[in-house]
């Protein structure tokens, strides 16, 4: 029995699709069976970010319309074992799917995989309720800026109301340099406001852009800081206890103290 985790944010463009693609791939690289589900009906992107855009035959809409079996609609990622994609229909819109139908798909996928990651569309309307309908847990992605954090807070409220727990935060596009000179809020500032658990910090990394251009998730490039951040988050999702490294150059001593503190 696996876990269904919705990756959501409220605001668009903060890194939901990037995070879903990279965490899905990372979990598969760790040996888990994973389905990544695009819940952005009408504006799908997870396929192209993962480089699977030319391989889609069926979508979740076809499964709902009983045009094909769920297992047949899953596009196998040939680069790693155990990873598949369920694409969204590009020709329909969010109102063509009911939350109960998404829930039924999630229930089926949960029974056959270790992880089901759902890439949520932006907004708090139907797209969000469809994406979160079948979720056990949530990952809220935010960047350290005022509008993203405000929207994240709104989404956290809705998730809590729906009884989805735990809700973990990914702080994306973090820049130690900007934090250092006082122009960006640090993780403590953000957590102080949002009051949920932090599961990881992903730095601003140009590798995200080039890997998206190629359709090869960043986690295949071991050396990049973004890749390492996503791999650590994936390990935490599997239950490993890995401290969140201090990206603020506070000095070796503070890092050691934090490492012990976070264990």
């Amino acid at each position: 029995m696996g876990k269904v985790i919705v990756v959501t944010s409220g605001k668009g463009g903060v890194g939901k699709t990037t995070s879903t693609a990279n965490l899905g791939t990372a979990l598969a690289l760790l040996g888990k069976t994973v389905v990544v589900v695009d819940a952005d009906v009408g504006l799908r992107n997870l396929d192209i970010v993962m480089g699977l855009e030319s391989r889609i035959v069926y979508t979740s809409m076809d499964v709902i319309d009983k045009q094909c079996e769920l297992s047949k609609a899953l596009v196998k990622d040939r680069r790693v074992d155990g990873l598949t994609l369920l694409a969204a229909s590009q020709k329909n819109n969010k109102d063509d799917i009911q939350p109960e139908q998404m829930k039924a798909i999630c229930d089926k996928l949960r029974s056959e995989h270790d992880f089901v990651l759902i890439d949520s569309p932006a907004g708090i309307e139907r797209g969000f309720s469809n994406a979160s309908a079948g979720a056990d847990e949530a990952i809220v992605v935010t960047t350290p800026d005022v509008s993203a954090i405000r929207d994240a807070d709104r989404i956290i409220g809705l998730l809590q109301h729906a009884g989805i727990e735990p809700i973990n935060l990914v702080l994306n596009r973090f820049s130690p340099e900007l934090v250092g000179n006082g122009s960006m809020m640090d993780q403590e500032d953000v957590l102080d406001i949002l009051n949920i658990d932090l599961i990881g910090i992903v730095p601003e990394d140009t590798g995200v852009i080039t890997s998206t251009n190629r359709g090869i998730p960043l986690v295949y490039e071991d050396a990049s800081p973004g890749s390492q951040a996503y791999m650590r988050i994936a390990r935490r999702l599997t239950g490993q206890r890995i401290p969140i490294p201090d990206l603020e150059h506070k000095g070796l001593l503070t890092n050691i103290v934090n490492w012990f503190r976070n264990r």
Partner: protein
Amino acid sequence: MNISLRQLFGRKPKSSSIAKQRLKLVITQDRLDVDDRFMTRLHHELAEVLAKYFEFSVNSVSMSLKQEGNSYVLVADIPYKKFHDGNARQ
């Protein structure tokens, strides 16, 4: 043989040009409102017909729709091993 100079000198194509190429394909499909199943079906049926004339591996065939100016072009890339001798197979 189909080796470009770029491959010969071991340089990877720039990721921005890969992005542009991939986008052109999906956007053409989006604009034409092409069904996801359409391309797959076309792929299979064309391969079936072509197999009567050529020897090739179905997995090596790539097919896509491209926009060129005002018109759309179906581009099929089919690396074949040889023609079948004589007439087409029945």
